[in-house]
């Protein structure tokens, strides 16, 4: 009974019971007067105008992908910048990060050249 994860199991058990009991209790206790307005899908109070399965322009996808690419680049630069130290990394570390950025720049120019940034076309 002294397993370290036992409290978590107990917590999960009570969380489950609490949820189920609350839903059932509120269902029993509350008045039920449905109408068409109430039964419609809740979307932040705004009226629903189209189907959710609409088409999204592929441009959003491209922008998202490019954002991700350069976001990850920036994320890699942080640990490098924090750990940068003349004695340990020195010129070698500097050249390495320049190569890293150069590789990503090739991707950037590729996207540019392929008109991935042209919103109107």
């Amino acid at each position, binding site marked *: 009974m002294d397993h370290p994860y036992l409290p978590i199991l107990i917590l999960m058990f009570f969380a489950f019971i609490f949820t189920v009991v609350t839903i059932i209790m509120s269902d029993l206790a509350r008045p039920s007067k449905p109408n068409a307005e109430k039964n419609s899908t809740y979307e932040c109070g705004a009226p629903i105008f189209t189907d959710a399965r609409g088409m999204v322009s592929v441009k959003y996808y491209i922008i998202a992908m490019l954002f991700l690419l350069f976001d990850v680049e920036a994320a890699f630069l942080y640990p490098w910048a924090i750990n940068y130290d003349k004695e*340990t*990394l*020195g010129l*070698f*570390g500097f050249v390495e990060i320049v190569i890293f950025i150069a*590789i990503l720049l*090739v991707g950037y*120019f*590729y996207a540019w*050249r*392929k008109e991935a940034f042209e919103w109107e076309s």
Partner: protein
Amino acid sequence: MVGTKMIETLHTFTSGDFTGLMPEIILCAFVLLISIYDFMSKNKDKEIVSYLTQIGLLATLISVLSLIGDTAAGDKAYVAYNGMFVLDNFAIFLKAVVLMVAVMTVAISHKYNKEAGYESGEYYTLIMFAVLGMMIMVSGGDLISIFVGLELMAIPCYFLTGVFKKDSRSIEAALKYFLMGAFSSAVLAYGISFVYGVIGSTNLEAIASFFDLAVIAKAKAGVGMAVTPEIMSAASAELATRLSNPIFYLVLVLFAAGFGFKIAAAPFHMWCPDVYEGAPTPITGFMSTAVKAASFAIFLRVYATGLFALHVNWAFTLGILSALTMTVGNFLAVTQKSVKRMLAYSSIAHAGYIMMGLVSIGIVTFDGVTLSINRIDDGMASVLFYLVTYAFMNLGPFIIIMMLRTKRNSGEMMADFHGLGKRAPILAALMLLFMFGLTGLPPTGGFIAKYYLFYAAVKANFTWLTIVACVNTAVSAFYYFRLGMVMYMYEPKIDEEINASPKAVHAVLYICVLVTLWIGIFPDKFFEAAKHSLMRLKYLL
């Protein structure tokens, strides 16, 4: 020689010793330069890009071959980045095979794509990226670097499958491949997370030593202390507990699903016929040879090093998967009307045969007291031998399919092969030779390779599997020879002239023929190379 370094010598960041990584660096530089050239030039014709790609791949091949001397010492290897990257004979062997196949694929692609109207420079850079992924993968000493390499290989392959953008079959195949491939990678990653959870490392050597009795005993005895019999028995009890941890069953199931997908083993083969049929023919050839070889290699490396101690648990299961794979592949191939699809099912069947070698890498003996596993070198060597033979033997038929394409006919259907003996006697004869090879008849390499697999399986007490494989070979003979019958005994259905193919395509076709025959007649050099490449894998346990 710089290359003969053991672990722990090259994990400092500043050392700057890139000898063992040179092929990857060269290839990476070529990919970047070629893609810069490609998107900066106004030239719509991509012939120059194709030549540059071939030069890049050949330069990489030369640099791989120049590393042979460095690791020939045997049990030593170049290990870098905390064991993430391992350059041993095994890696060199497979890198050479993959690069050769890639050079041949690029050499045959240009005219094919141009005629289909889908010329793009990305086609070539994506092939190079896929090859880079394979090279990293076969050099992976850690499940993480293997996974990264696997993805670097797989993602360009999804694109390459869909490179014929307006062909609905190509798009469908690419989407199917992508969705299923992404899912199977997730399964594999999930398995890796369990390995890390239990062992605390994803390094293959660390996993191997987790199951190593001597290592456990030493850890129990403490630094500099002798291992007494009491400690030894405590250590073997510990090892037994570790081996019977039920998490490893889960890991083995997840790994079998993840790797099984990549090599198209039943029941994870569903994507294979659609993808092979929809992809451009050179890419189908590339995927069924290079991608398959690299995936099998990593399957073998993981199971022969890290998970070898669990051989008792996985060998039988994989044996059943192997039997299932070859049976499903062969029986479904019989009914196909498209030759390309038939070859896809045949490629599934061959994955089944190769898995036979994979389960035969060890033999379990039980003397009444202790259970012990011994390595069978022939099992591992037979897999490598089969992979190299299959690479040449299976690329050939796809080249012939490619050459048969005309303006109105795809060249892929059985009807295209009707009466080929009259329309193109040489192509028909070569196709028949490749069919002999795939069936496993002398004098082709297919015979020797299959014989070696069967020999290893019998040696590892998998006689039942060998019998299943023999029956399957008989079934496969039916559809391989039916193609021969169609070519020689039927009247031609198509009156179109066969287009003249560029010299490069002919050259690559003849290289495939020659190597297939060469392996069949003088296999000893290839045996030696296959056996030699196991040196370090053996040393790991």
